[in-house]
């Protein structure tokens, strides 16, 4: 092969190395994009993070407890002065029936769609805690993933600027030697 042909071929090889370097640096750029997306995901996960759900569930339980206390007391007081089986007064009977109904729903003796109110409250609290735990796991993993993406970014950058760039320069030097 004539020297000029070899020089032409080596010129092509230099271009190839340059292209590989560009491709690898492109992946470094993509990783930067990826970290940006991961940041959006993290803020999304934080918005799902149910600190607010926890608070709302606690507030809900407190309010229900507040409702249960006076209803139970009211029903107890009524029964202390009215025997619904003995009285003929329909208002007295109604008062006892309604009060007992309300009391039974609140203490879980009666069920709504098969769910007892105290169980509903504890289930909601448990779900809120579980959701919180899942969100914590997601946030922890996003942090670890960001670390890995940073390492990848550095590694690919170093391959592009290290051995690939050195090879490219060396081919050019060899071409100039001919």
């Amino acid at each position, binding site marked *: 092969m004539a020297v000029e042909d070899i020089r032409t071929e080596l010129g092509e090889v230099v271009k190839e190395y340059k292209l590989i370097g560009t*491709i690898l640096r492109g992946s470094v750029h993509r990783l930067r994009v990826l970290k940006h997306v991961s940041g959006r995901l993290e803020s999304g996960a934080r918005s799902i993070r149910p600190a607010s759900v926890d608070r709302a569930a606690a507030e809900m339980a407190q309010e229900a407890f507040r409702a*249960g206390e006076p209803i139970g*007391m009211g029903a107890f007081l009524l029964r202390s002065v009215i025997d619904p089986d003995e009285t003929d007064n329909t208002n007295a009977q109604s*008062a006892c029936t309604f009060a007992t109904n309300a009391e039974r729903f609140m203490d879980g003796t009666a069920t709504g769609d098969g769910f007892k*109110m105290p169980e509903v409250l504890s289930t909601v609290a448990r779900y809120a805690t579980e959701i919180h735990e899942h969100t914590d*796991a997601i946030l922890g993993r996003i942090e670890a993933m960001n670390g890995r993406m940073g*390492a990848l970014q550095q590694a690919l950058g170093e391959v592009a600027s290290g051995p690939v760039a*050195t090879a490219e320069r060396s081919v050019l030097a*060899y071409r100039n030697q001919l």
Partner: protein
Amino acid sequence: MSMEEVQSTLLQAGEQLSEGSVSARDAWRAVHNTRAIVAAADRGLDKADLWLVTLETVQGHIGTIVHTGSSKLMAVDEKFTAVADDSKNPTVQTVRQQTDIAQGHLDGYTQVAGANIPETLLAVKEDIDFIREHLAAIRTLGAEMLGILSVAERTLQVVSLSAQNAALATRDYLIDIS
């Protein structure tokens, strides 16, 4: 028990039941708010899922880039060797060595900047899968929570109404016996 004591007890019972009715209504509002928060978190999940898809796509692109980089290095090495067969020339040796080093990094035979590129890339994929699984778990918990909260809402409406009716009937009974 004297009539006065009965009247006083009924008065107290009516007040307690009335207070319980209002509190049950407040609890209903708290449940309603909790449902709204959980529903909002669900919309956050939709966004997070979208970001995950983007993450996965870009992660796939980087995987392709690494693979392409490795293939191109192999091809360019062959091309270079075909025209630069002077293996004793130090510049030629440098090109070959650096190409081997770059390929070793991209294929994961050697680490660069403390990272194994293909393994780290795979770990990022596992991070994405992990996050997706936990987001799915949150979605399931949220859906179940919404169902239970709607039961609580309906039950508290019944409780509030029953306690209110009990308070009214108690007052009517008080009038009856006065």
